[in-house]
């Protein structure tokens, strides 16, 4: 691990894949356009030349089968990294993920754990319109048997794959499309990244912003605006969407006594809904204002930029939500 | 900027710093400190506001010359025109 260098999120993910391929012969990458094309988001560019066709496998457009095949190969001792181009296409593989990957170990009385890693790009922000802009983490985080993580920082993007491959259970890694170009410092911490546990991204005292993925950076923008207004926001980056790190969330909410959950999913049945209720269940007597949520508008994400921006949980909406927790007069 | 306009701008700045002061009740001849507890922090904020709004840099030594509305107008008008 070299000293702190500035790299992109995309580069961090690629380094993690290369390191995994070098470190373990059982590892191979499989997915649409991961080889010749170098990855739909150029994450695996160059890996085909370096590791060859046997370990960088372009697949036909058969999500259900190549995800099922990844599960099968994992059952038989391999450590596949299956790339489903985006969560939007994973809907075709939901049956394999939910009915096989997530269920096998329990249903077989512990005989068949499924050590497969499935990476999916997620989220909106590139005007790709409704079918290519989904944020469905809540669906996967709903299923016992899956571990679901979403790295939002360079260190996590660099370190989470290693932790996922070391895990005997199926791990879904969501990579926000809008973060691939994020640039930041890669530090030593990347080597010790854990798969679970949330992290306090910004220490604050007046309100807790609970978030994950691309929304982390919407929260930091909102926090700067709030700071000028004397409201010192603490930001909790969930990192793991299943299991959720209740302890870290509640510790923060008990300190600030106000919670706003920022989630790019649609409000109904969202992760924000789950987290909000956990806060009320465990932190009711610490709350000084109702738990608030800032989610995507409940519409298919529209194509035009101004509408897409209006649909997504923008910093201005986060600031407004926080202010409403202090007083109507504000 | 004539004297009335200057006095109005100054009062605006004073009430911005001390929101609980009613501009109409300020007596031009009496020091701010005596009318409504205008302390050293308020004076510093006032100096900063003058620099920001009117572009005048008031040295600490001249703070005494800003003690009341009349003194302010007298001190500032030659420096502005």
């Amino acid at each position, binding site marked *: 691990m070299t000293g702190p260098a500035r790299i992109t999120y995309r580069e961090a993910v690629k380094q993690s894949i290369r390191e995994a391929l070098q470190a373990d012969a059982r590892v191979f990458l499989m997915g649409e356009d991961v080889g010749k094309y170098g990855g739909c988001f150029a994450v695996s560019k160059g890996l085909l030349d370096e590791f060859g066709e046997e370990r960088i496998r372009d697949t036909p457009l058969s999500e259900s089968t190549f995800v099922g095949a990844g599960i099968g190969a994992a059952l038989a001792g391999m450590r596949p990294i299956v790339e489903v181009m985006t969560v939007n296409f994973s809907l075709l593989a939901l049956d394999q993920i939910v009915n096989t990957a997530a269920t096998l170990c329990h249903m077989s009385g512990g005989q068949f754990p499924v050590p497969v890693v499935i990476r999916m790009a997620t989220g909106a922000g590139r005007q790709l319109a409704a079918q290519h802009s989904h944020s469905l983490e809540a669906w996967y985080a709903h299923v016992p048997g899956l571990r679901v993580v979403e790295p939002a920082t360079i260190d996590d993007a660099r370190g989470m794959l290693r932790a996922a491959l070391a895990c005997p259970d199926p791990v879904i890694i969501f990579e926000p499309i809008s973060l691939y170009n994020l640039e930041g410092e890669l530090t030593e911490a990347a080597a010790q990244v854990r798969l679970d546990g949330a992290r306090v991204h910004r220490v604050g*005292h*007046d309100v807790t912003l609970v978030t994950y993925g691309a929304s982390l950076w919407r929260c930091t923008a909102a926090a700067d605006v709030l700071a000028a207004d*004397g*409201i*010192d926001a603490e930001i909790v980056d969930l990192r793991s969407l299943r299991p959720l790190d209740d302890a870290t969330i509640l510790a923060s909410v008990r300190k*600030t*006594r106000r919670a706003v959950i920022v989630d790019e999913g649609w*409000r109904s049945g969202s992760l924000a809904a789950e987290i909000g209720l956990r806060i009320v269940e465990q932190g*009711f*007597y*610490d*709350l*000084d*204002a*109702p738990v*608030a949520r800032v989610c995507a508008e409940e519409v298919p994400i529209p194509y035009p930029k101004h509408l897409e921006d209006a649909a997504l949980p923008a910093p201005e909406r986060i600031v407004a939500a926080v202010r*409403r*927790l*202090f*007083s*109507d*007069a*504000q | 900027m004539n004297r009335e306009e200057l006095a109005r701008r100054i009062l605006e700045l004073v009430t911005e*710093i*001390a*929101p*609980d*002061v009613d501009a109409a009740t300020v007596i031009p001849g009496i020091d701010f*400190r005596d009318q*409504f*507890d205008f*302390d*050293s*922090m308020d004076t*510093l*904020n006032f*100096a*900063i506001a003058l*620099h920001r709004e009117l572009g005048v*840099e*008031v*040295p*600490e030594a001249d703070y005494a010359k800003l003690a009341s509305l009349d003194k302010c107008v007298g001190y500032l008008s030659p420096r502005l025109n």
Partner: protein
Amino acid sequence: MLSEFRLPALGADMDDGTILEWHIVPGASVKRGDVVAVVETDKGAIDVEIFMDGIVREIVVAPGTRIPVGTVVALIETEDAAAAPVATLAGESGGEGLTPAAAPAPAEEGRREGGSTAAPSDRLKISPAARRRARALDVDVAALHGTGPGGAITVEDVEQARAAPKPSPTPPPPPPPAGAGEGGGMRDAIAAAMSRSKREIPHYYLSTTVDVTATTEWLTAHNAAVPVTQRLLFAALLVKSIALACRELPGFSGFHREGRYEDSPAVHVGVAVALRGGGLVAPAIMDTADKPLTTLMDDFRALVTRARAGRLRASELAAPTIILTSLGEASVDAVFPIIQPPQVAIVGAGAIAERPWVVDGKVVPRQLLTLSLGADHRVTDGRLGAQFLARIAARLLEPASL
């Protein structure tokens, strides 16, 4: 041996059935696997097999009657026990005995989709945290004015009702309560806190006079050299000095609660701010010791501005681990302040004034400042208090290093 032939469970979701026709009559012989009847179910007519060999003794249930799964429908004379049918689960036999009690339909709340607060009720609106804090501070919430969303009473409201004590024993003549804006509520809160402090905390007092001439000269030179927005007040130097002294000497920055003292790892120095309408608050400059003077000054200015606009956070009010109260402006030589529980110390600063002072055997005019300390004798004693004041003074005399 006489065996019972019961209506078998023919599907996961089949609770009962109706026999359409029998293929057997009393006296007929049957063997394992024979289809002996046809039963009408939701899915249609289904052949029913028998799993024993024997002679039909009696048809118990005639065609046409709807019967639950497991009902005895015929009696069969079987030769030997070997072929006895598997005992059906008594009582359960397919259809679960336990028909789920008709759970009362959950009352459909009249909630608006997406509405976040329930319909406004006339009950007192107070947050759970505020209710708990009010109990802890024995504050009667009924009298409070809520500043939270929808006028709800928040912890901040409760705590401001128990705001920081009036620092000096001889407060300036309080403005007539009637005229004061929020003086009334805050006045009671201050009174309550002060009497509790006097009752519970064994104060000891120390004071020292410091020649700050060099420091004031440094400050004047510094302010002349920097743009107006970066000018410093003397109080800022004092706050930093106190914070650094706290960092060096434990026992002054912390809390005494439930009978024991906890030193606070973080040092947040509260600064007493007099509100024009009367009353007083002491919000904290967070992590005071770690902040460079310019940042500290910016925080200080922001705090005072927001304090005067009534927009302080409860966290800022609850955060101080020690308080500075400075009455330099009111030309009082020395201040002997009262500690704000659960803190354990408070520093007072009088006016900086030119007075005679002996330097190298000669009496000369110098800029002098009287610093005082009120401290909790349960936690520290005079010797340590003296060292603490000395540390503050020493820091104050090296402004460049603050």
